[in-house]
């Protein structure tokens, strides 16, 4: 925490040649796309492990209970069952792990803290036997009055989700508040005194689940060295390696993590979950142990924190914001995972990208007996944006302004601070351009048909606040190249970008650049694949590795040919010699000569944090998005038809426009999920009522807006290669606010609870018809 800042991420390479950039900037088709399309891509569940033991988890049908005993007699009698493992079979005290608090046990110890928490694991020769035996394990338990809601968790005398001994010395250990955050600047009271209009409202954002189409899973293979090879489709293989080494007491080199491409991650596959259990099972049985979760079990292992926000916001008569005060309670789960950081980082931008003189943000991470919440695309920003953007529209309606105008009057200019106080943050983009472009693409000023409404909103999310990515690039003697980059390619298309960068920087044809990832045994360290960081961090490391290769080519060329090094120079794809220019691959061939061999370049991108910063450091960049939606409301059914949906992101530079569009469309539709239909519902026993694809609805083909338009603003002002920024989350940050405003305009009814289901919209219209509305 006291590390001094070393260097921030400097803009690497503002394009000195604004003309064609070779492969970078082109819609290059996805690296690995052919295998993904033909079915040849091997995801975790497709990997073959002959002779592997199959694992099934034992759970109980309540969300909170004391475990009185586990009787595995009948289970063990089932042919093929090798072992039934409970907490008693694991080291004592039970090893615990977690990224923000080491609170999560490998198996439940004495108490189940959420519906689906594994109590025991069955290991058997076949999956049929494992599953039959798991059903035959008898767990005696006493149900407890779990804290399943924010109200229950915050009530006096509430059931304590976490054993207070987990965080000794913390005065809040006797409450369900795990962490809190407070951001204050200006003088709210003084600002209120000059305020013309104050709006005060309560907003809720639902718990939603990631629903990757590939469910989770892990395979653990014991090695003859006493270590483990672990296969898991994780976003953070190096974190998993470190976690397993720590839990097992092994050196890092004895834990090799293979990370097959995740079939969708969205944040849910970042942090370790069942991997430590599989590791113990493999070491205990000395056999390969395999567990592929069901979709239901996947629901029970990841979700987004729900949030309840009370907001008071003031405006001058001209619509200028004077103050914003918000209390946000994030409903995290039974274990911390990374949820406290979601709360802290999300609430950091709870006053948005606006110029607000007085701000007070108070947020809490409240534990409940529910699925541990974790990172999920947007990382806390969509929640706070729902409240803030709705407040802007509430103010606009009171002042007779429209949604576009009130944002124009408050959005900060580039370089202007939007977070003030000790941890100031300034706008790193021309964000007005995105707002205006979104309005223009929607046709903001066009006449509106009956029962239709429009809304526009903006969203902001801090990028990574620290990071380290290392990469190797090998230029082989025939001019082809191999990139080693630890970014997990879960659909964002990272490898395609590395291919483009290397092709341009080394002059190697695109189809002669391959990428190796997903193996901690061969690929250098990468902190993580999260926060839309990889373009900036790993992209810069790959770029630096290419430049290292070029320098090495120059040096060896000088040595091999006798041309003095000071008469040589290199630039993108080219070696310049006194006799003329050579393509870099050609220069490399000459330099390597008859012994052949290769050049190995190394690149590192490091952003150290700041010890005194509430986020641990300044964000390397901000994702900024403007979304504008036109909706038609069926007043008889409450159904919403999105006639037009526009999303514009501030991207710096589009390294691959096709991938930017894919990510933006995907994020926009995912945003419609939590805005329109998605929510995890619990019963009085803390069980997820809509557990599974049948009852938990996500957007389908039929939910795509009639017109879905994405736009990008490019000012080449990002810290990544060629002025790029990260882009993968922007388009869902403010979907809800735009949709809510559109529905309000169409119906005259304001709804402050998500999702805007037909039932909820219909009910609101009915209530309004009886005379109760804003």
């Amino acid at each position: 925490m006291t590390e001094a800042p070393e260097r921030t991420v400097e803009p690497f390479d503002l394009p000195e040649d604004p003309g064609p950039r070779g492969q970078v900037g082109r819609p290059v088709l996805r690296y690995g796309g052919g295998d993904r399309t033909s079915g040849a891509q091997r995801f975790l569940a497709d990997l073959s492990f002959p002779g592997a033991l199959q694992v099934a988890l034992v759970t109980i049908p309540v969300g909170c209970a004391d475990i009185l005993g586990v009787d595995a007699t009948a289970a063990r009698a089932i042919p093929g069952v090798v072992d039934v493992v409970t907490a008693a079979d694991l080291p004592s005290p039970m090893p615990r792990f977690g990224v923000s608090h080491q609170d999560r046990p490998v198996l439940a110890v004495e108490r189940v803290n959420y519906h689906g928490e594994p109590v025991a694991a069955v290991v058997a020769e076949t999956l049929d036997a494992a599953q039959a035996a798991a059903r035959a394990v008898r767990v005696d338990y006493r149900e407890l009055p779990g804290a399943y809601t924010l109200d229950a968790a915050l009530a006096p005398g509430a059931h304590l989700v976490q054993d207070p001994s987990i965080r000794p010395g913390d005065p809040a250990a006797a409450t369900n508040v795990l962490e809190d955050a407070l951001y204050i600047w200006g003088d709210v009271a003084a600002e209120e005194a000059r305020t013309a209009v104050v709006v005060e409202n309560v907003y809720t954002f639902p718990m939603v689940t990631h629903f990757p189409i590939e469910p989770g899973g892990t395979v653990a293979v014991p090695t003859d060295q006493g270590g483990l090879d672990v296969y898991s489709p994780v976003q953070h293989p190096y974190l998993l390696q470190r976690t397993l080494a720590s839990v097992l007491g092994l050196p890092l080199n004895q834990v090799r993590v293979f990370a097959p491409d995740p079939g969708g991650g969205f944040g849910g596959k970042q942090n370790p979950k069942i991997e430590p259990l599989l590791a113990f099972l493999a070491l205990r049985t000395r056999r390969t142990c395999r567990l592929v979760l069901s979709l239901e079990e996947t629901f029970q292992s990841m979700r987004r924190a729900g949030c309840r926000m009370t907001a008071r916001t003031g405006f001058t008569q001209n619509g200028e914001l004077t103050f914003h005060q918000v209390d946000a309670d994030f409903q995290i789960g039974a274990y911390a995972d990374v949820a406290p950081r979601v709360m802290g980082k999300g609430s950091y931008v709870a006053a948005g990208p606006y110029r607000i003189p007085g701000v007070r943000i108070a947020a809490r991470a409240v534990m409940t007996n529910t699925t541990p919440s974790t990172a999920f695309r947007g990382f806390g920003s969509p929640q706070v944006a729902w409240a803030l953007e709705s407040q802007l529209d509430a103010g606009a309606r009171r002042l007779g302004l429209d949604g576009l105008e009130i944002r124009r009057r408050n959005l900060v200019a580039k370089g202007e601070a939007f977070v003030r106080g000790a941890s100031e943050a300034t706008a790193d983009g021309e964000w007005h351009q995105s707002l205006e472009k979104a309005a223009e693409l929607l046709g903001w000023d066009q006449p509106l048909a009956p029962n239709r409404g429009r809304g526009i909103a903006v969203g902001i999310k801090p990028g990574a606040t620290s990071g380290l990515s290392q990469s190797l690039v090998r230029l082989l003697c025939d001019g082809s190249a191999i990139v080693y980059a630890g970014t997990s390619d879960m659909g964002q298309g990272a490898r395609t970008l590395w291919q483009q960068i290397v092709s341009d920087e080394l002059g190697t044809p695109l189809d002669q650049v391959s990428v190796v990832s997903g193996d901690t045994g061969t690929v250098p360290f990468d902190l993580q694949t999260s926060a839309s960081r990889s373009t900036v961090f790993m992209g810069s490391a790959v770029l630096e590795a290419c430049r290292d290769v070029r320098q090495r080519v120059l040096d060896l060329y000088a040595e091999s040919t006798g041309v003095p090094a000071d008469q040589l120079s290199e630039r993108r794809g080219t070696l310049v010699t006194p006799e003329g220019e050579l393509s870099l691959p050609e220069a490399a061939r000459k330099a390597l000569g008859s012994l052949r061999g290769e050049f190995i370049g190394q690149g590192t991108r490091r952003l150290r944090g700041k010890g005194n910063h509430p986020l641990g450091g300044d964000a390397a960049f901000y994702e900024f998005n403007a979304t504008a939606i036109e909706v038609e409301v069926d007043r008889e059914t409450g159904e919403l038809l999105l006639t037009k949906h526009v999303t514009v992101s501030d991207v710096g530079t589009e390294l691959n426009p096709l991938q930017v569009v894919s990510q933006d469309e995907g994020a926009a539709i995912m945003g419609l999920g939590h805005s329109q239909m998605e929510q995890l519902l619990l019963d009085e026993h803390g069980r997820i009522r809509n557990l599974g694809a049948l009852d938990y609805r996500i957007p389908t083909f039929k939910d795509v807006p009639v017109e879905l338009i994405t736009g990008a603003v490019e000012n080449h002002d990002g810290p990544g290669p060629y002025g790029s920024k990260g882009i993968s989350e922007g388009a869902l940050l403010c979907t809800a606010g735009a949709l809510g405003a559109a529905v309000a305009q169409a119906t005259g009814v304001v709804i402050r609870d998500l999702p805007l289901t037909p039932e909820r919209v219909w009910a609101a219209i009915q209530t309004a018809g009886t005379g109760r509305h804003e």
Partner: protein
Amino acid sequence: MTSARADDHLLDELQTVTLTVNGSRRSVAVPPHRTLLDGLREEVGLPGTKSCCAEGECGACTVLLDGRAVNSCLVLCVEAEGHEVTTIEGLSQDGLTDLQEEFLNAGAVQCGFCIPGQVVAAEYLLRTNPSPSEDEIREGMSGNLCRCAGYQRIVRAVQATAARRSGGDD
């Protein structure tokens, strides 16, 4: 055996099922509860067909059964006795099809996990309706979920394929 349980029968009673997979006759010995999805993946050795929801909602496991698109998680192996199954591997036997190429060109392929099912469903749609409208594509594909939400890209891919197959130049 005093420990006999109601579901012990699940662990034995293998039945031999003979079916045609991607043009080849295959015989597999499976218990009666084995789904076609699991049979294809585990017994026939064709893991291109993906498993997600296991209850017929997501479409990741879509295959052609006698030429019709079905969720293979809702079909038992024993029900496929004597029938013809085409999987994503079968569609790709001679390299990528025009449809698969258009998926790539449109940027429809992100994480890729749902894509085999999407491709099979889209192939079925185009065989039964060679020039579908956008609404018909959305309707016809609505049983296939994509959490990367490449839906609009997939619609474009299907439209482009329909245009190619009709001989139209774009």
